[in-house]
């Protein structure tokens, strides 16, 4: 590792803060563990690359990307994509559960009304 540049200090600070922030959210139970996994994984990836600068060169070399920061953008975009897809899955699941609840509530109210009328 050569000398530490200004941008590297910023990158390290930001990615560490991101990681700590996610851990804090999980600890205070504002973020469920199961939904935090992708965030934790990608914040670790960012920490890794902010310390290990030549790693980015390796990756861009391997992928045939001429400009190493572009590889970083690609990783970032992939992270965002994956997390957004996860969100869509979660929303679909919630919508389904939400529908079932509405149906059950409707049927229970009907049953309740019948019972109330009888007594």
């Amino acid at each position, binding site marked *: 590792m050569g000398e530490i540049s200004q941008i590297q200090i910023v990158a390290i600070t930001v990615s560490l803060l991101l990681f700590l922030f996610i851990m804090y959210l999980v600890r205070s139970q504002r973020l469920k563990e199961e939904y935090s996994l992708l965030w934790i994984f990608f914040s670790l990836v960012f920490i890794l690359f902010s310390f290990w600068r030549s790693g980015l060169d390796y990756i861009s070399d391997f992928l045939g990307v001429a400009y190493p920061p572009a590889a970083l953008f690609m990783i970032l975009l992939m992270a965002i994509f994956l997390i957004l897809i996860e969100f869509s899955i979660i929303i679909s699941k919630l919508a389904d559960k939400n*529908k079932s609840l*509405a*149906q059950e509530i*409707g*049927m229970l*109210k*009907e049953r309740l009304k*019948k019972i109330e009328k009888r007594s």
Partner: protein
Amino acid sequence: MKTLIIIPVYNESANISKILDEIAEMFPQYDALVVNDASTDGSGRIAEENGKAAVVNLPFNLGIGGAVQTGFKYGRDRDYDIALQFDGDGQHQVSEIKKLVSVIEEGGADVVIGSRFNEKTVGFTTHTLRRIGIRIFQGFSYLMIGQKITDHTSGFRAYNRRSFCFLANHYPTDFPEPEVVILLGRNHFVIKEVFTQMLRRQGGVSSIPLAKGPYYMIKVMLAMFMASIRSRIITDNKKL
């Protein structure tokens, strides 16, 4: 056989009482269930005051699919043998109910769709563009499930217990009518059609405005295609 007539309604205060009266008069042996999909015009209250049907009021609007599925769940929980979907917008005629139910009673199919197109259609002229769209659906679904269905968008249907219990668990929400055809076909349910006369709607608005037709078609075909690539839920290939 215990038969349940499921009437999904959304803002049909003008029609609902008349429909319930007719059903009670013509088919006193069947039970009626109104699923009020969070109407804002008091349809639910009118149905309750009518007193001839059970009324389930959904807490918020689920769309036609969610409403009909509620009826299937109700039928499943109360041991009905046959469930019939009868749209509450005045398009369907109460007198035609028997045609559908009797096919199920005789065990001729798992699902019967009341179609507008099986015989020379009397009293129902639909727009040319809509006809073309309907033709395209026919070819498309034949490719997908190998059963010839002429009227995918008809909401006039009868189900035996096995098929409506299946749908109580798996009901598409986006474009339920055409998607259900694919879903059932893919899971080896036998679908039949009988010709039924339908009226022009008497109140409410069509769920498919003509101007949005092509857009609707593409969305529906996409949904049908999605339904057809979904993994089969019932996997054994035996004829049931």
